């Protein structure tokens, strides 16, 4: 298990390769990479993530431990950035290692669903017309609820 809460950017492919360097006989790796999205019709200039790092480490640590136990993962890594990011930059990456593909996929989806609602980050979009805080999504609450 590993958690990295960072401000600098990261290299998604290099992270995947580093994660896979120790596969220990396991056969399935699921990766999710979240990028700063920008609607061509309504573009943003930057996305700023505010973070409470101490709480992020404890919350993500708990989420990872639950994912590992629940899906029998052999390993899981979460990388999450904060600070000011531009469109196309990676925000988050989760990687899971399991013997079989369903466990790897389920673990990665579980981690993402919980990060969306339970990890102490707050997103603010800056666009030519001004700034706005991204609102908490009811859809994200529903996505998390399916794991109960």
């Amino acid at each position, binding site marked *: 298990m590993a958690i990295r809460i960072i401000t600098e950017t990261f290299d998604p492919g290099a992270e995947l390769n580093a994660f896979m360097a120790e596969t220990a006989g396991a056969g399935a790796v699921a990766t999710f990479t979240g990028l700063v999205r920008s609607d061509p019709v309504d573009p943003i200039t930057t996305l700023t993530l505010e973070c409470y790092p101490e709480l992020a480490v404890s*919350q993500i640590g708990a989420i990872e431990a639950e994912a590992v136990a629940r899906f029998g993962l052999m390993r899981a890594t979460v990388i999450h950035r904060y600070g000011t990011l531009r469109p196309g930059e990676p925000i988050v990456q989760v990687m899971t290692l399991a013997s079989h593909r369903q466990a790897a996929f389920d673990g990665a989806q579980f981690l993402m669903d919980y990060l*969306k609602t339970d990890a102490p980050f707050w997103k603010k979009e800056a666009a030519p017309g001004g700034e706005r805080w*991204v609102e908490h999504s009811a859809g994200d609450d529903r996505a998390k609820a399916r794991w109960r």
Partner: protein
Amino acid sequence: MKILYFAWLRERLDRGEEEVSPPSDVKTVADLIGWLRAGDPVADLAMQRPEIIRAAIDAKIVPHSALIAGARIVALFPPMTGG
């Protein structure tokens, strides 16, 4: 006791943290939010919907019913939008 504020709550209060010494009848997070609002019209407006404010004590998420006795850091923040 230190209080941390994040995101739009921090912006509306125009401060990221403050030191407070609530009286002894302020026992829970809910009491603390009420006491902060009672003492400051800006805080009263910023937290006018206390049910959407989330709280953590010493880097652990807690409900509004949690006791604040012994807490070093209480964090108050809007719903999270990570991932």
